[in-house]
């Protein structure tokens, strides 16, 4: 072979016009979609900052002429739900009281289930797992009436333990699936080594498996926080009058039909209610995508 004369390459990849227009098209489409999804948020935000007089002008896209935070204060502390005029504040703390034990318990139990299913050769593990999965795909509504009857029997209907238990039960299939999939990727030799070291069921779970579960636990927390915070139906049915979550109170505020509709207060209340999941999404987008990728997200 002779050494061929090499042609010097261009300094950078040549840009063809076809390529260029393709790019422009993609950006135009993405921009339009972003606008489409952001518009409602924009309208809510500006409306919540307007006075009722300004809202009555009917220009929903206009920026507020005079910014007022009055609707936000009202929504938080003095908006009326029926006869009770204490705002969303109560609902917020109710939701927190429901959220914290529900998230902690459902994740702990899910991790324990996943651990038992993937490491200990439980007799009939596959059948158990199939049953759990079936539970994940059943519509909630099917369970409501039997659960109401059952809770009434054991005396926890319409109480904080009742709603927490409900969230734990309904979170179980997805949490188990999530943790089982994560644990089945861990080498089984790790588990064998621990058994030879003399560790039993709980020692292995607490000393070895749980410390390794940090990434998947973050995913689980994100999923459970958003799911439980956004829940309306279960809270309405099981929480009881004293513990109604924020979503239910929001509904009550927005749907109060007496007198003038305070659109600015409604908007402020809605944004307040969605702040928690919104913050979780924004703070943990990367982890959330990972959760979806691990194949365990239900609509």
């Amino acid at each position, binding site marked *: 072979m002779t050494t061929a004369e090499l042609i010097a390459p261009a300094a950078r990849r040549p840009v063809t016009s076809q390529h260029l227009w393709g790019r422009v098209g993609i950006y135009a489409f993405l921009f339009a979609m972003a606008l489409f999804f952001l518009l409602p948020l924009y309208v809510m935000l500006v409306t919540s900052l307007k006075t009722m007089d300004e809202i009555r002008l009917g220009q929903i896209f206009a920026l507020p002429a005079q910014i007022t935070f009055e609707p936000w204060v009202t929504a938080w502390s003095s908006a009326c739900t029926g006869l009770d005029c204490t705002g969303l504040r109560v609902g917020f703390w109710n939701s927190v009281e429901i959220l914290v034990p529900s998230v902690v318990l459902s994740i702990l139990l899910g991790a324990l289930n996943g651990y038992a299913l993937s490491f200990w050769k439980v007799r009939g593990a596959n059948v158990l797992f199939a049953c759990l999965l079936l539970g994940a795909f059943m519509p909630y509504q099917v369970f409501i009436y039997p659960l109401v009857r059952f809770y009434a029997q054991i005396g926890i209907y319409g109480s904080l333990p009742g709603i927490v238990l409900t969230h734990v039960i309904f979170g179980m299939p997805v949490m188990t699936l999530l943790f089982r999939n994560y644990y089945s990727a861990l080498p089984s030799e*790790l588990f064998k*080594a621990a*058994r030879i*070291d003399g560790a039993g069921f709980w*020692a292995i779970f607490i000393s070895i498996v749980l410390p*390794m579960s940090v990434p998947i636990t973050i995913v689980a927390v994100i999923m459970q926080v958003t799911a439980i915070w956004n829940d309306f139906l279960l809270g309405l049915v099981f929480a009881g009058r004293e513990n109604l979550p924020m979503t239910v109170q929001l509904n009550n505020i927005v749907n109060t039909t007496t007198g003038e509709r305070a659109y600015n207060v409604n908007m402020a209340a809605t944004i307040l209610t969605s702040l928690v999941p919104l913050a979780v999404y924004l703070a943990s987008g990367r982890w959330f995508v990972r959760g979806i990728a691990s194949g365990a997200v239900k609509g």
Partner: protein
Amino acid sequence: MTSVSIRNLEIRYGQHVVMDKLNLDIRDGEFLVLLGPSGCGKSTLMNAIGGLTDASGGSIHFDGRDVTWADPKDRGIGMVFQSYALYPTMSVRRNMSFGLRIAGVDRAEIDRKVAWAADILQIEHLLDRKPAALSGGQRQRVAIGRALVRDADIFLFDEPLSNLDAKLRAELRLEIKKLHNAIGSTMIYVTHDQIEALTLADRIAVMKGGVIQQLDTPLNVYNKPANEFVGGFLGSPAMNKVDGGFETRDGSLVFDTGAFALDVDDYPFDQRVESGQKATLGIRPEHINPANGSSKHYSGKLSLIEPMGSDILGWSDFDGISLSHRLSQEDHYTVGDSFPVSMDVRKASFFDQATGNRL
């Protein structure tokens, strides 16, 4: 130090029989290697000894004590795995002491044992690191240390060097051998690597299909394979195999392959063979050498040369039969050369064609 006796061990997964009526005796302080291709049941046998797989039948005894149904932790074993199986969230020190902490041993004793094991394995400087910050060789040392700390009577090694590169493998192999000499515990070692088996073992159990094919010293397993499988499995470059039959010519017994006839009067037969009997000759490349005068020789045509560093391997054609053989380092060869070779029939093996057993 502990001896192991396995009696009629049977392991089944549902209908699938992995092991049937296996018997094995391992002496006190012995280094026994279980060698075989993947799926031969060697790891299953080790897991059964360790108590990680339940026996479906038969029994396992340590020093005469029945441990068939004992928990892994009550057997006095330490196990080292191919994937190291270190606890990723614990430091090396905590990895090594985990078993003792579970057992509730007091702190001073734990510190003393960890320091002792770390000294033997030369990992003192790594004690406060996490496994992720260690190289493969260091991780495997830690895994061995974890078994050491537990004062195990029996060490089980499940392909411990298979994840390491060739140089490290040789290094750690040597260290395992030294460790065995130093502490004298009974060691059982599973591998598919014949070099590891030959270098480490007091005795090798060659396995296939859940059955021990041969249990003997490395030299005997290599030089006097009990059957055709063992002969073919051990040795790299592999043993040559040629089919043929025995005949009596001029009063002496020869093995006729069709291409050449081998005088087998010097071969130490285990069984009587008769004229007309079919057999397979197994002869290792190092027992076929360029002839130097006196002995009987066979002429072949060189078709391929494989230099292997310490040796030069040649492939020659003997009237349609291709055999690999050793070439002398001093002489120069070219493909196409014809030259005589001698075959050392005393070091060859003959196998029965029907059973595959050594004749």
